Protein backbone atom coordinates (compact mmCIF):
# COMPACT_ATOMS: atom_id res chain seq x y z
CA UNK A 1 0.00 0.00 0.00
CA UNK A 2 1.19 3.43 -0.75
CA UNK A 3 -0.06 5.49 2.17
CA UNK A 4 2.85 7.37 3.69
CA UNK A 5 2.39 9.19 6.96
CA UNK A 6 4.26 12.49 6.89
CA UNK A 7 6.28 12.99 10.01
CA UNK A 8 5.87 9.43 11.20
CA UNK A 9 8.82 7.28 12.19
CA UNK A 10 10.84 9.74 14.22
CA UNK A 11 10.24 7.85 17.44
CA UNK A 12 10.63 4.35 16.06
CA UNK A 13 11.55 1.53 18.33
CA UNK A 14 14.99 0.00 18.28
CA UNK A 15 15.42 -2.19 15.24
CA UNK A 16 16.27 -5.70 16.31
CA UNK A 17 16.85 -8.89 14.37
CA UNK A 18 14.44 -11.65 15.34
CA UNK A 19 11.25 -9.61 15.08
CA UNK A 20 8.58 -11.02 12.75
CA UNK A 21 6.75 -8.55 10.47
CA UNK A 22 4.41 -6.11 12.21
CA UNK A 23 5.79 -6.88 15.68
CA UNK A 24 7.50 -4.56 18.15
CA UNK A 25 9.82 -5.36 21.01
CA UNK A 26 8.65 -5.22 24.60
CA UNK A 27 10.59 -5.81 27.78
CA UNK A 28 7.42 -6.21 29.89
CA UNK A 29 5.36 -9.35 29.95
CA UNK A 30 1.84 -8.25 28.99
CA UNK A 31 -1.11 -10.42 30.04
CA UNK A 32 -3.86 -11.41 27.64
CA UNK A 33 -6.74 -13.70 28.38
CA UNK A 34 -10.43 -13.87 27.66
CA UNK A 35 -11.72 -14.05 31.22
CA UNK A 36 -10.80 -14.10 34.88
CA UNK A 37 -7.58 -15.79 35.95
CA UNK A 38 -8.36 -19.25 37.38
CA UNK A 39 -6.48 -20.35 40.50
CA UNK A 40 -5.84 -24.09 40.29
CA UNK A 41 -4.64 -25.82 43.48
CA UNK A 42 -1.83 -28.25 42.68
CA UNK A 43 -3.71 -31.13 44.33
CA UNK A 44 -6.50 -30.61 41.79
CA UNK A 45 -4.19 -30.26 38.81
CA UNK A 46 -3.94 -32.95 36.18
CA UNK A 47 -3.05 -33.22 32.53
CA UNK A 48 -4.75 -35.75 30.26
CA UNK A 49 -4.00 -36.80 26.72
CA UNK A 50 -7.00 -38.34 24.93
CA UNK A 51 -6.30 -40.10 21.64
CA UNK A 52 -8.57 -40.24 18.60
CA UNK A 53 -9.65 -43.73 19.69
CA UNK A 54 -10.56 -42.61 23.20
CA UNK A 55 -7.48 -43.92 25.03
CA UNK A 56 -6.48 -41.66 27.92
CA UNK A 57 -3.26 -41.03 29.77
CA UNK A 58 -3.07 -38.69 32.76
CA UNK A 59 -0.48 -37.18 35.07
CA UNK A 60 -1.04 -35.51 38.41
CA UNK A 61 1.23 -32.67 39.49
CA UNK A 62 3.77 -34.91 41.25
CA UNK A 63 3.93 -37.28 38.30
CA UNK A 64 4.15 -34.43 35.81
CA UNK A 65 6.96 -32.57 37.56
CA UNK A 66 8.88 -35.83 38.02
CA UNK A 67 9.15 -36.17 34.24
CA UNK A 68 12.37 -35.14 32.55
CA UNK A 69 12.30 -31.37 32.12
CA UNK A 70 14.13 -29.02 29.83
CA UNK A 71 15.32 -25.42 30.20
CA UNK A 72 14.57 -23.48 27.04
CA UNK A 73 15.30 -19.93 25.93
CA UNK A 74 12.96 -18.76 23.18
CA UNK A 75 11.42 -15.67 21.56
CA UNK A 76 7.66 -15.24 21.92
CA UNK A 77 5.33 -13.31 19.64
CA UNK A 78 1.82 -12.18 20.59
CA UNK A 79 -0.77 -11.54 17.87
CA UNK A 80 -1.50 -8.18 19.56
CA UNK A 81 1.92 -7.10 18.15
CA UNK A 82 4.38 -7.40 21.02
CA UNK A 83 7.34 -9.74 20.94
CA UNK A 84 9.62 -10.63 23.80
CA UNK A 85 13.03 -12.07 23.02
CA UNK A 86 15.15 -14.51 24.96
CA UNK A 87 12.53 -15.66 27.48
CA UNK A 88 13.60 -18.55 29.72
CA UNK A 89 11.31 -21.39 30.74
CA UNK A 90 11.41 -24.83 32.27
CA UNK A 91 8.94 -27.43 31.15
CA UNK A 92 8.26 -30.91 29.89
CA UNK A 93 8.66 -31.51 26.17
CA UNK A 94 5.58 -32.74 24.32
CA UNK A 95 7.92 -35.38 22.86
CA UNK A 96 8.19 -36.79 26.37
CA UNK A 97 4.45 -36.64 27.03
CA UNK A 98 3.52 -38.19 23.68
CA UNK A 99 6.32 -40.80 23.63
CA UNK A 100 4.17 -43.73 24.74
CA UNK A 101 0.92 -42.57 23.18
CA UNK A 102 -0.30 -44.64 20.26
CA UNK A 103 -1.84 -42.34 17.68
CA UNK A 104 -2.07 -41.54 14.00
CA UNK A 105 -3.78 -38.17 14.56
CA UNK A 106 -2.63 -35.22 12.49
CA UNK A 107 -4.25 -32.53 14.66
CA UNK A 108 -4.67 -31.71 18.32
CA UNK A 109 -6.85 -29.53 20.51
CA UNK A 110 -5.25 -28.07 23.62
CA UNK A 111 -7.66 -27.71 26.57
CA UNK A 112 -7.41 -25.45 29.61
CA UNK A 113 -9.01 -25.04 33.00
CA UNK A 114 -11.79 -22.55 32.38
CA UNK A 115 -12.72 -23.98 29.00
CA UNK A 116 -10.23 -22.28 26.67
CA UNK A 117 -9.15 -24.33 23.65
CA UNK A 118 -6.71 -23.89 20.79
CA UNK A 119 -5.90 -26.16 17.85
CA UNK A 120 -2.36 -27.13 16.87
CA UNK A 121 -1.20 -29.61 14.22
CA UNK A 122 0.51 -32.66 15.74
CA UNK A 123 3.76 -32.05 13.91
CA UNK A 124 4.06 -28.63 15.58
CA UNK A 125 4.13 -30.30 18.98
CA UNK A 126 6.88 -32.79 18.16
CA UNK A 127 10.65 -32.75 17.61
CA UNK A 128 11.55 -30.24 20.30
CA UNK A 129 9.12 -27.51 19.23
CA UNK A 130 6.69 -27.47 22.19
CA UNK A 131 6.67 -27.82 25.96
CA UNK A 132 4.33 -27.63 28.90
CA UNK A 133 6.10 -25.00 30.96
CA UNK A 134 5.83 -24.55 34.72
CA UNK A 135 8.66 -22.14 35.44
CA UNK A 136 9.36 -18.73 33.93
CA UNK A 137 12.61 -16.91 34.60
CA UNK A 138 13.49 -19.45 37.27
CA UNK A 139 10.28 -18.92 39.28
CA UNK A 140 7.03 -20.83 39.51
CA UNK A 141 4.73 -19.67 36.72
CA UNK A 142 2.34 -16.97 38.02
CA UNK A 143 -1.41 -17.62 37.57
CA UNK A 144 -1.87 -14.60 35.28
CA UNK A 145 0.82 -15.97 32.98
CA UNK A 146 -0.79 -19.41 32.90
CA UNK A 147 0.41 -21.13 36.08
CA UNK A 148 0.56 -23.80 37.34
CA UNK A 149 1.45 -24.83 33.78
CA UNK A 150 0.96 -23.54 30.26
CA UNK A 151 1.69 -24.67 26.75
CA UNK A 152 4.80 -23.15 25.17
CA UNK A 153 4.86 -23.29 21.37
CA UNK A 154 7.12 -20.35 20.54
CA UNK A 155 7.17 -20.76 16.75
CA UNK A 156 3.43 -19.91 16.60
CA UNK A 157 1.63 -16.76 17.83
CA UNK A 158 1.39 -16.91 21.58
CA UNK A 159 -2.37 -17.51 21.81
CA UNK A 160 -1.49 -21.08 20.75
CA UNK A 161 0.56 -21.36 23.96
CA UNK A 162 -2.57 -21.92 26.03
CA UNK A 163 -2.49 -20.95 29.71
CA UNK A 164 -3.71 -23.23 32.52
CA UNK A 165 -3.51 -26.36 30.34
CA UNK A 166 -5.17 -29.52 31.51
CA UNK A 167 -5.43 -31.66 28.43
CA UNK A 168 -4.74 -32.48 24.83
CA UNK A 169 -7.20 -34.18 22.47
CA UNK A 170 -5.75 -35.86 19.42
CA UNK A 171 -7.90 -35.47 16.30
CA UNK A 172 -7.96 -36.78 12.74
CA UNK A 173 -9.36 -33.51 11.41
CA UNK A 174 -8.54 -29.91 12.19
CA UNK A 175 -11.09 -27.94 14.19
CA UNK A 176 -11.00 -24.33 15.38
CA UNK A 177 -10.37 -23.57 19.03
CA UNK A 178 -11.58 -20.55 21.00
CA UNK A 179 -9.85 -17.65 19.23
CA UNK A 180 -9.77 -19.47 15.91
CA UNK A 181 -13.59 -19.63 15.98
CA UNK A 182 -13.59 -15.89 16.73
CA UNK A 183 -11.75 -14.96 13.54
CA UNK A 184 -8.12 -15.69 14.28
CA UNK A 185 -5.94 -17.80 11.99
CA UNK A 186 -6.12 -21.59 12.19
CA UNK A 187 -2.32 -21.96 12.22
CA UNK A 188 -0.77 -18.64 13.31
CA UNK A 189 2.77 -18.46 11.92
CA UNK A 190 4.16 -15.07 13.02
CA UNK A 191 6.77 -15.04 10.24
CA UNK A 192 3.97 -15.28 7.66
CA UNK A 193 1.91 -12.82 9.71
CA UNK A 194 -1.01 -15.24 9.93
CA UNK A 195 -2.99 -13.21 12.43
CA UNK A 196 -6.55 -13.54 11.20
CA UNK A 197 -8.66 -15.83 9.03
CA UNK A 198 -7.53 -15.53 5.45
CA UNK A 199 -4.06 -14.08 6.21
Amino acid sequence: MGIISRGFGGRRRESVPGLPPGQYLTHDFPVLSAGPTPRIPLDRWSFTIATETGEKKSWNWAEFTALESADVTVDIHCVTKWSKLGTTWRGVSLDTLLADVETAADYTMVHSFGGYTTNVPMEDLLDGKAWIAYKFDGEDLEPEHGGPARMLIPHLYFWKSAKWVNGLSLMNDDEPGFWEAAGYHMYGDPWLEQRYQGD
Partner: protein
Amino acid sequence: MARAALPGRLTWRAATLVGERWETPSARTLVLDVPDWPGHLPGQHVDVRLTAPDGYSAQRSYSIASAWADNATDKTVELTVQRLDDGEVSPYLTDTLEIGDQIELRGPVGGWFVWRPAQEKPVLLLAGGSGVVPLMAMIRARGAAKGKQPFRLIYSVRTPEDACYAQELSRRVRDDPGLDVHFVHTRVTPRKRIDVATINSYGWPADFTPDCYVCGPTTFVEAAADILVALGHDPKRIRTERFGGTS
Protein backbone atom coordinates in the same frame (compact mmCIF):
# COMPACT_ATOMS: atom_id res chain seq x y z
CA MET B 1 -28.33 -4.31 13.18
CA ALA B 2 -24.58 -4.78 13.12
CA ARG B 3 -22.99 -7.70 11.41
CA ALA B 4 -20.29 -9.95 12.79
CA ALA B 5 -16.77 -9.95 11.42
CA LEU B 6 -17.01 -11.19 7.88
CA PRO B 7 -15.24 -14.38 7.00
CA GLY B 8 -12.43 -14.15 4.53
CA ARG B 9 -9.40 -11.98 4.38
CA LEU B 10 -9.22 -8.78 6.38
CA THR B 11 -7.74 -6.34 3.92
CA TRP B 12 -5.93 -3.11 4.69
CA ARG B 13 -8.15 -0.14 3.84
CA ALA B 14 -7.33 3.52 3.50
CA ALA B 15 -9.01 5.52 6.26
CA THR B 16 -9.31 9.30 6.03
CA LEU B 17 -9.52 11.51 9.10
CA VAL B 18 -12.71 13.52 8.67
CA GLY B 19 -13.26 14.68 12.22
CA GLU B 20 -11.64 14.73 15.61
CA ARG B 21 -12.22 15.79 19.20
CA TRP B 22 -10.28 15.71 22.43
CA GLU B 23 -11.97 13.61 25.10
CA THR B 24 -9.37 14.49 27.74
CA PRO B 25 -6.04 16.38 27.52
CA SER B 26 -4.38 13.13 26.39
CA ALA B 27 -7.12 11.16 24.60
CA ARG B 28 -8.27 12.07 21.11
CA THR B 29 -11.15 10.62 19.15
CA LEU B 30 -10.42 10.10 15.46
CA VAL B 31 -13.45 10.08 13.15
CA LEU B 32 -12.44 8.04 10.13
CA ASP B 33 -14.10 7.61 6.78
CA VAL B 34 -13.40 4.05 5.63
CA PRO B 35 -14.92 3.25 2.22
CA ASP B 36 -16.69 -0.14 2.10
CA TRP B 37 -16.33 -0.72 5.84
CA PRO B 38 -18.21 -3.99 6.48
CA GLY B 39 -19.60 -2.87 9.85
CA HIS B 40 -18.63 -4.02 13.32
CA LEU B 41 -19.98 -5.12 16.66
CA PRO B 42 -19.42 -3.08 19.81
CA GLY B 43 -16.27 -4.30 21.56
CA GLN B 44 -14.34 -5.17 18.41
CA HIS B 45 -11.05 -3.53 17.52
CA VAL B 46 -9.01 -2.63 14.46
CA ASP B 47 -5.37 -2.80 13.53
CA VAL B 48 -3.80 0.49 12.45
CA ARG B 49 -0.67 0.60 10.28
CA LEU B 50 1.51 3.66 9.80
CA THR B 51 4.29 3.81 7.22
CA ALA B 52 7.17 6.28 7.25
CA PRO B 53 8.56 7.85 4.06
CA ASP B 54 11.53 5.43 4.16
CA GLY B 55 9.23 2.39 4.28
CA TYR B 56 9.44 1.70 8.01
CA SER B 57 6.04 0.73 9.36
CA ALA B 58 4.42 -0.05 12.69
CA GLN B 59 1.08 -1.60 13.65
CA ARG B 60 -1.04 -1.27 16.76
CA SER B 61 -4.53 -2.36 17.80
CA TYR B 62 -7.21 0.11 18.91
CA SER B 63 -10.73 -0.49 20.14
CA ILE B 64 -13.59 0.98 18.16
CA ALA B 65 -15.53 3.60 20.12
CA SER B 66 -18.50 4.05 17.82
CA ALA B 67 -21.52 1.86 17.24
CA TRP B 68 -22.39 0.78 13.75
CA ALA B 69 -25.83 0.54 12.20
CA ASP B 70 -26.22 -0.64 8.63
CA ASN B 71 -29.12 1.73 8.08
CA ALA B 72 -27.53 4.81 9.60
CA THR B 73 -26.43 7.67 7.42
CA ASP B 74 -23.19 8.16 9.36
CA LYS B 75 -20.80 5.53 8.06
CA THR B 76 -17.71 6.65 9.90
CA VAL B 77 -15.60 4.62 12.34
CA GLU B 78 -14.39 6.28 15.53
CA LEU B 79 -11.29 5.34 17.51
CA THR B 80 -10.32 6.98 20.79
CA VAL B 81 -6.55 6.93 21.22
CA GLN B 82 -4.83 7.50 24.54
CA ARG B 83 -1.45 9.20 24.10
CA LEU B 84 1.35 7.22 25.71
CA ASP B 85 4.26 9.61 25.98
CA ASP B 86 6.94 7.01 25.30
CA GLY B 87 5.01 5.45 22.43
CA GLU B 88 5.73 5.70 18.76
CA VAL B 89 2.24 5.29 17.27
CA SER B 90 -0.17 6.85 19.75
CA PRO B 91 1.55 10.30 19.89
CA TYR B 92 1.40 10.44 16.09
CA LEU B 93 -2.32 9.69 16.09
CA THR B 94 -3.12 12.17 18.87
CA ASP B 95 -0.79 15.04 17.97
CA THR B 96 0.30 14.84 14.34
CA LEU B 97 -2.51 13.35 12.25
CA GLU B 98 -4.55 16.12 10.61
CA ILE B 99 -7.96 16.30 8.98
CA GLY B 100 -7.67 14.87 5.46
CA ASP B 101 -4.68 12.66 6.30
CA GLN B 102 -4.92 8.95 5.63
CA ILE B 103 -3.85 5.93 7.65
CA GLU B 104 -4.25 2.22 6.97
CA LEU B 105 -6.72 0.19 8.94
CA ARG B 106 -8.03 -3.35 8.90
CA GLY B 107 -10.74 -5.10 10.80
CA PRO B 108 -13.00 -5.50 12.54
CA VAL B 109 -11.15 -7.99 14.72
CA GLY B 110 -12.33 -10.05 17.67
CA GLY B 111 -15.51 -12.07 18.11
CA TRP B 112 -15.42 -12.65 21.88
CA PHE B 113 -15.28 -9.32 23.69
CA VAL B 114 -18.47 -8.12 21.97
CA TRP B 115 -21.98 -7.26 23.03
CA ARG B 116 -24.82 -8.03 20.68
CA PRO B 117 -28.05 -6.05 21.00
CA ALA B 118 -29.90 -9.40 20.90
CA GLN B 119 -28.39 -10.34 24.29
CA GLU B 120 -31.15 -10.02 26.88
CA LYS B 121 -29.26 -10.22 30.19
CA PRO B 122 -28.41 -7.19 32.32
CA VAL B 123 -24.92 -5.93 31.54
CA LEU B 124 -22.15 -4.83 33.90
CA LEU B 125 -19.33 -2.83 32.36
CA LEU B 126 -16.13 -2.28 34.36
CA ALA B 127 -13.72 0.20 32.81
CA GLY B 128 -10.23 1.16 33.92
CA GLY B 129 -8.88 4.30 32.25
CA SER B 130 -9.00 4.16 28.46
CA GLY B 131 -10.48 0.66 28.79
CA VAL B 132 -13.78 2.51 28.60
CA VAL B 133 -13.50 2.77 24.81
CA PRO B 134 -14.99 -0.61 23.72
CA LEU B 135 -17.53 -0.38 26.56
CA MET B 136 -18.65 3.01 25.26
CA ALA B 137 -19.29 1.36 21.90
CA MET B 138 -21.64 -1.05 23.71
CA ILE B 139 -23.46 1.81 25.47
CA ARG B 140 -23.81 3.62 22.15
CA ALA B 141 -25.06 0.48 20.38
CA ARG B 142 -27.65 -0.05 23.11
CA GLY B 143 -28.72 3.57 22.77
CA ALA B 144 -28.97 3.33 18.98
CA ALA B 145 -31.03 0.13 19.25
CA LYS B 146 -33.15 1.64 22.03
CA GLY B 147 -32.20 -1.44 24.04
CA LYS B 148 -34.05 -2.21 27.25
CA GLN B 149 -31.32 -4.32 28.86
CA PRO B 150 -30.33 -2.76 32.19
CA PHE B 151 -26.76 -1.46 31.80
CA ARG B 152 -24.39 -0.39 34.55
CA LEU B 153 -20.95 1.11 34.00
CA ILE B 154 -18.38 1.45 36.78
CA TYR B 155 -15.59 3.64 35.42
CA SER B 156 -12.32 3.89 37.32
CA VAL B 157 -10.27 6.90 36.30
CA ARG B 158 -7.63 9.06 37.96
CA THR B 159 -9.54 12.35 38.18
CA PRO B 160 -12.76 13.72 36.66
CA GLU B 161 -10.65 15.48 34.01
CA ASP B 162 -9.31 12.09 32.86
CA ALA B 163 -12.76 10.70 32.12
CA CYS B 164 -13.55 10.20 28.44
CA TYR B 165 -17.08 10.87 27.18
CA ALA B 166 -18.13 12.48 30.48
CA GLN B 167 -20.73 14.80 28.94
CA GLU B 168 -22.15 12.15 26.67
CA LEU B 169 -22.37 9.69 29.56
CA SER B 170 -24.32 12.13 31.72
CA ARG B 171 -26.63 12.90 28.79
CA ARG B 172 -27.20 9.20 28.19
CA VAL B 173 -27.88 8.53 31.86
CA ARG B 174 -30.65 11.10 31.49
CA ASP B 175 -31.95 9.97 28.09
CA ASP B 176 -31.20 6.22 27.81
CA PRO B 177 -33.58 4.49 30.25
CA GLY B 178 -31.93 1.80 32.31
CA LEU B 179 -28.34 3.09 32.06
CA ASP B 180 -26.41 3.91 35.24
CA VAL B 181 -22.84 5.17 35.53
CA HIS B 182 -20.67 5.28 38.64
CA PHE B 183 -17.20 6.84 38.72
CA VAL B 184 -14.32 5.72 40.92
CA HIS B 185 -11.59 8.37 41.17
CA THR B 186 -8.20 6.93 42.03
CA ARG B 187 -6.26 10.22 42.37
CA VAL B 188 -8.85 12.36 44.11
CA THR B 189 -8.83 12.45 47.92
CA PRO B 190 -10.10 10.19 49.40
CA ARG B 191 -8.39 7.94 46.85
CA LYS B 192 -10.53 5.00 45.81
CA ARG B 193 -9.85 1.75 44.02
CA ILE B 194 -12.38 -0.54 42.53
CA ASP B 195 -13.18 -2.91 45.39
CA VAL B 196 -15.75 -5.42 46.64
CA ALA B 197 -17.96 -2.73 48.16
CA THR B 198 -18.02 -0.71 44.93
CA ILE B 199 -18.90 -3.63 42.71
CA ASN B 200 -21.42 -4.90 45.26
CA SER B 201 -23.10 -1.49 45.49
CA TYR B 202 -22.99 -0.36 41.87
CA GLY B 203 -22.91 -3.65 39.95
CA TRP B 204 -25.54 -6.37 39.60
CA PRO B 205 -26.04 -9.24 42.04
CA ALA B 206 -24.65 -12.52 40.73
CA ASP B 207 -28.22 -13.92 40.92
CA PHE B 208 -29.13 -11.73 37.95
CA THR B 209 -26.52 -13.61 35.88
CA PRO B 210 -25.41 -10.43 34.12
CA ASP B 211 -23.02 -10.40 31.20
CA CYS B 212 -19.86 -8.75 32.56
CA TYR B 213 -17.28 -6.94 30.45
CA VAL B 214 -14.04 -5.78 32.04
CA CYS B 215 -11.49 -3.69 30.14
CA GLY B 216 -8.44 -1.78 31.28
CA PRO B 217 -4.83 -2.20 32.32
CA THR B 218 -3.86 -5.67 33.53
CA THR B 219 -3.79 -4.78 37.23
CA PHE B 220 -7.30 -3.32 37.00
CA VAL B 221 -8.70 -6.26 35.05
CA GLU B 222 -7.12 -8.83 37.35
CA ALA B 223 -8.52 -7.09 40.44
CA ALA B 224 -11.99 -6.47 39.02
CA ALA B 225 -12.40 -9.95 37.54
CA ASP B 226 -11.22 -11.57 40.78
CA ILE B 227 -13.83 -9.58 42.71
CA LEU B 228 -16.58 -10.62 40.32
CA VAL B 229 -15.63 -14.28 40.77
CA ALA B 230 -15.50 -13.84 44.56
CA LEU B 231 -18.98 -12.28 44.48
CA GLY B 232 -20.28 -15.42 42.80
CA HIS B 233 -20.38 -14.40 39.16
CA ASP B 234 -19.90 -17.28 36.73
CA PRO B 235 -16.39 -16.94 35.22
CA LYS B 236 -17.91 -17.91 31.87
CA ARG B 237 -20.03 -14.74 31.90
CA ILE B 238 -17.02 -12.49 32.56
CA ARG B 239 -15.29 -11.30 29.42
CA THR B 240 -12.03 -9.46 29.77
CA GLU B 241 -9.86 -7.36 27.53
CA ARG B 242 -6.50 -6.32 28.93
CA PHE B 243 -3.94 -3.98 27.58
CA GLY B 244 -0.48 -3.06 28.57
CA GLY B 245 2.72 -2.89 26.64
CA THR B 246 0.94 -1.26 23.69
CA SER B 247 2.20 2.15 22.77
